[in-house]
């Protein structure tokens, strides 16, 4: 029974980690290629979730909503790039932090104005709403398995694109030396814009995928953004491989920590204070992990080579 429970938690951790990867991947490419800190990346995840919710209500089909939400998230990212971010690339990191902070404040309120402050819920598509028996006595929701599958598929697609296509080659080259790539006749502005749009779309995809399992509400991107930062700092900024490893690590540590910390502490403390301390320590675990990683490797696990 405990083993089954542990397996379910591992799957939950994996699912959370893959969602984090989808968000962190865009964040880390944008930073790696453009040296741009985008705090507003979390609201792009929120926008993805709201788009999925709105289109589901409109069309009645989650799959159709997803198909509409993806290009919408892409366009949304491009508009943001055009209006705000494009004017900030040449500026220092402090300006990036502040201006994108302004974008967050604006969009969190805008979403509240348009959709209301109350959380929206998106029904799990009927086809995927059941559970499957993974092992005797171990049931797992189909939809969460689909999220895991989709996350892995996108990770693979991203790996192939970055490592085996011309666009990927330019992205990698841009990450190590943007002026040189520009001097070789590549339209670096266009490349930046494309990279930015794809990053926004990945975050939007993550938001749309979690819409049926989480509540869609204003500010939902803020905490996820911090987690995505933890992921890319642990993984090494600009490294997609690092983001993948770190996202799974964070997803598992967070999910398993919340689940097992009270249980483990019960061996040392009485039940009441064990669950109290466990609840206090569990959300801090990933930050402790990050501090430990940075203490030994100040540039993360897989630092991008320059």
């Amino acid at each position, binding site marked *: 029974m405990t083993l089954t429970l542990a397996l379910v938690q591992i799957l939950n951790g994996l699912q959370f980690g893959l969602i984090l990867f989808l968000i962190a991947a865009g964040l880390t490419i944008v930073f790696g290629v453009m040296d741009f800190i985008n705090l507003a990346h979390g609201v792009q995840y929120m926008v993805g979730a709201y788009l999925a919710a709105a289109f589901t209500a409109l069309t009645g089909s989650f799959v159709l909503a997803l198909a509409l939400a993806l290009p919408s998230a892409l366009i949304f990212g491009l508009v943001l790039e055009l209006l705000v971010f494009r004017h900030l690339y040449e500026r220092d990191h402090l300006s990036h932090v502040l201006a994108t902070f302004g974008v967050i404040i604006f969009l969190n309120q805008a979403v509240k104005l348009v959709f209301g402050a109350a959380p929206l819920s998106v029904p799990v598509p009927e086809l995927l709403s059941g559970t499957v028996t993974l092992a005797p006595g171990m049931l797992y929701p189909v939809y969460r398995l689909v999220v895991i599958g989709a996350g892995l598929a996108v990770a693979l697609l991203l790996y192939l694109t970055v490592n085996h296509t011309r666009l990927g080659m330019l992205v990698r080259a841009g990450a190590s030396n943007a002026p040189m790539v520009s001097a070789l006749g590549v339209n670096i502005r266009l490349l930046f814009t494309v990279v930015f749009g794809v990053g926004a779309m990945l975050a939007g995809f993550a938001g749309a995928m979690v819409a049926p399992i989480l509540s869609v509400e204003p500010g939902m991107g803020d905490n996820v953004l911090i987690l995505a930062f933890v992921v890319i*700092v642990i993984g090494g900024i600009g490294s997609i491989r690092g983001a993948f490893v770190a996202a799974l690590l964070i997803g598992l540590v967070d999910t398993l920590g919340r689940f097992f910390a009270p249980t483990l502490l019960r061996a040392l403390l009485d039940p009441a204070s064990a669950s109290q301390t466990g609840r206090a320590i569990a959300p801090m675990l990933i930050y402790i992990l990050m501090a430990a990683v940075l203490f030994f490797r100040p540039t993360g696990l897989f630092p991008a080579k320059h």
Partner: protein
Amino acid sequence: MADVPGVSGNDEAEPATSMAGSRRRGQVLPIVVFAALALVPFAAALGGGDFVLALVTRTMILAIAAMSLDLLIGCGAMISFGHAAYIGLGAYSAGILSSHGIDDAFVQLAAALASAGLFALATGAISLRTRGVYFIMITLAFGQMLYFLFTSLAAYGGDDGLSLASRSTIVGWRLLESDLALYYLVFAVLGGLYLALRALIASRFGRVLRGIRENPVRMQAIGFSPYRYQLTAYVIAGLIAAVAGWLLANQSGFVSPAYVGWQRSGDLIFMVVLGGLGSLSGAIIGAAAFTLVAEFLSGLTEYWGMIFGPLLILVVLFARGGLAGLFRSGS
């Protein structure tokens, strides 16, 4: 840290390079600011009353925190995105001790300074091993760590926060129950810390810190350890922000994890940049402009963030040098 260009304007802090004339101009602004603040209670007594007094008190408290952050960002080019954590430590020192019946200001302040000092020493020691964007993000993460710690303190209100039964007492004396007394205490602390920070920035310590900002390798080559100077500044800034937190808890009669959220840290950075990096009176003006604009807009509409957010972007894009820069532009 080479990624923070344009943080060279030090009106109060660069006696060697500024001429006598611009130096005198640099003195005018703080004198005007402090004279105006000293007179606020009289104006409040004529009209506006308690609301104005409370608003200006809160503004001055935030100004204390913004000044301490300016020591880090403006003087040391250490962009800490977790500075609200120290406000939280100061505020919770008041809240937690008060809930156990310990209302003495000195005991609470000692707890605030001890906890903030230790937290700054431990997290600063790790954060300062990193550079640039890693530093921004790791300080952000440490701030969030504390945020989650406070939300999980079920015994002290958890998510909902904690109301203080009464304001702190000074050796048993309930002086601070009077809003006017609290106002002048905050005023005195702001003035005292302004002078202290000004002296610190002008001192050898401050000059080394600014030297490290410009070129850490060269400072190391001539025999200074950048790490130790930066860590010392980091701890000092944390201690000052904790005092602000303790005052904030007393002023509002309430502490909550919301004081510590990363958005609060973002607000503080914005105040410093709005006022003008590297200028202490700029930090005060920035805090004032921030709170007043936020107060005005939130009175205007529930969705004031939709105006405030774009305003912030415009300030970043067009008002380089901040508000203090406007006063200096003639020189």
